[in-house]
């Protein structure tokens, strides 16, 4: 089986954000980078399927040259090769991103049986690139998948939306978007990292497009939190907490 996973390099933001002086981007001077958790699950699922059934796992990303770092990390857990669609570093809007991904997929000799995405990207959360790609390739798409079984060219997927669990079935080739919780992504091993250095990454330069959804600026959402009242240190503070639980009505 030939599988493709689409992923995106994103900063690993912790508990606060700093913006660049022009407020157009996150100041990443002190941040590391990774990919969104959903996409880590997608790569892990792809690696497991190739382990079981044989075949190849290709990674595809549109991003800055530095996104090679994210491809290498995911190659180290078992992907076969990577494709990096290089930008000048700026975010592309969802339509432009989807168009570039579709062009790259169509240029491949491999006709991927399964294309995996994250349910949404961690940073821009547009909720759409996968749907645009699926339409352009005339493939069915199942989203928000938390359990997936592939057998005899049929994908059985379970998605949990709200409190309802739904079971879907679709024939391959298909596009599936997965959520955190699908599996537990493995960490790259040292031999995996060494092998990954030699795995091929193809660089391409897609033509930029004028954005239809045009980012103007970012702002940090105001936090209305005032900070915690410290009840004390260690077990001595427990009686004070019991009083709080009474006041808020949790204890009678």
């Amino acid at each position, binding site marked *: 089986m030939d599988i493709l996973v689409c992923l995106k390099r994103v900063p690993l933001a912790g508990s606060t954000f700093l913006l660049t002086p022009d407020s157009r981007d996150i100041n990443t001077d002190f941040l590391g980078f990774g990919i969104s958790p959903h996409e880590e699950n997608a790569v892990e699922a792809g690696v497991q399927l190739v382990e079981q059934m044989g075949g190849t796992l290709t990674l595809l990303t549109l991003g800055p040259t530095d996104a090679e770092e994210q491809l290498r990390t995911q190659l180290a857990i078992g992907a076969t090769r990577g494709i990096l669609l290089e930008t000048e570093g700026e975010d592309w809007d969802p339509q432009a991103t989807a168009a570039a991904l579709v062009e790259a997929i169509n240029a491949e000799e491999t006709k991927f049986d399964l294309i995996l995405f994250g349910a949404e990207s961690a940073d821009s959360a547009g909720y759409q690139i996968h*749907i645009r790609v699926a339409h352009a390739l005339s493939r069915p798409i199942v989203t928000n998948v938390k359990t997936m079984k592939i057998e005899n060219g049929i994908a059985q997927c379970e998605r949990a939306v709200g409190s309802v669990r739904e079971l879907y079935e679709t024939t391959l080739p298909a596009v599936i978007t997965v959520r955190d*919780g699908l599996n*537990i992504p493995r960490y790259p091993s040292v031999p995996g990292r060494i092998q990954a250095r030699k795995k091929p990454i193809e660089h391409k330069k897609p033509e930029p497009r004028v954005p239809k959804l045009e980012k*103007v600026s970012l702002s940090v959402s105001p936090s209305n939190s005032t900070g915690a009242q*410290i009840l004390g240190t260690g077990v001595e503070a427990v009686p004070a907490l019991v009083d709080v639980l009474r006041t808020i009505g949790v204890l009678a």
Partner: protein
Amino acid sequence: MILVLVDHDRGELDPLSLRALTAARKLSNDIHAVVIGNDGAALSAICGEYGASILHVAQHPEITDYTPAASGRALAQLANSLKPEAVLAAGSPRGNEQLAHLATILDLPMAAECSEITLGDPHSVVRARWAANLMEQALVHSGLLIATVLAFAVEAEASPVAITVSNVDVLLEPIDLRVRILGRGGEAAKSGASLTDAKVIVSGGRGVGGPEAFSLLEELAALLDGAVGCSRVVTSSGWRPHAEQVGQTGTKVAPDLYIAAGISGAMQHIAGCKNSKTIVVINTDPEAPILAYADYAIIGDLHKVLPALTQAIKATKG
């Protein structure tokens, strides 16, 4: 005119759609609602109550359950015939998904999770990024605006008008029905629901140290009729099932009491628990970021504080 997708699950309204109707009324006095599938026809009264003068019921013999691609096709057909200025839906996974199909079919941009919308040429929106920790000011270059409304940005407000129902037969393409629901239910729903329904959640993070010590959290949760939650570090270490994960990629909860033990307070975790009425932190680190979001804190080792708290509560219960 603004067309609002009113989402339902087999005739049961998604209440977030009422917020989308309310948001639409800020843009225009002329509001139409649309439901996908015959089951939705039952929602005409509530759509009228929230300001829609027409409910379009998009019907097709094969639309008997949630089929997002078919929804997109139905919405595209209605958008082409009714020529609204905007199509809105709730910023829920289903709302985002159905409008993404619509936007793709019409080859137009879509702005997901907007807290503010101003119609114009171009349209201007403020939309959530990073689980609403960052807001993006953006321009949407398209005639028809396709956007979803950030879940908690607008409170639903009634504004009753008389409503008429218009049935529309939808023409589908074969691909719209390639993905079908085979069944629904059960266990996953239950475990997720126990977190969203719980009045008390005792949540643990990396500081718990391993799966065994979660018994301390279980005992306290049971005593308070609550549920156990956790951070992503805990699920990705395999200590607890993913159904218990609170946060951006887990479950969003809003209990009366949220106890965060050994959790640092990454914004992706806060995104899932900040709507709790009271947040209590137990953490060894007086500088942990979660203190900024909490109401009360005990600085200390959860392995000592939790058993002491359990004992003290047992004592009060006699």
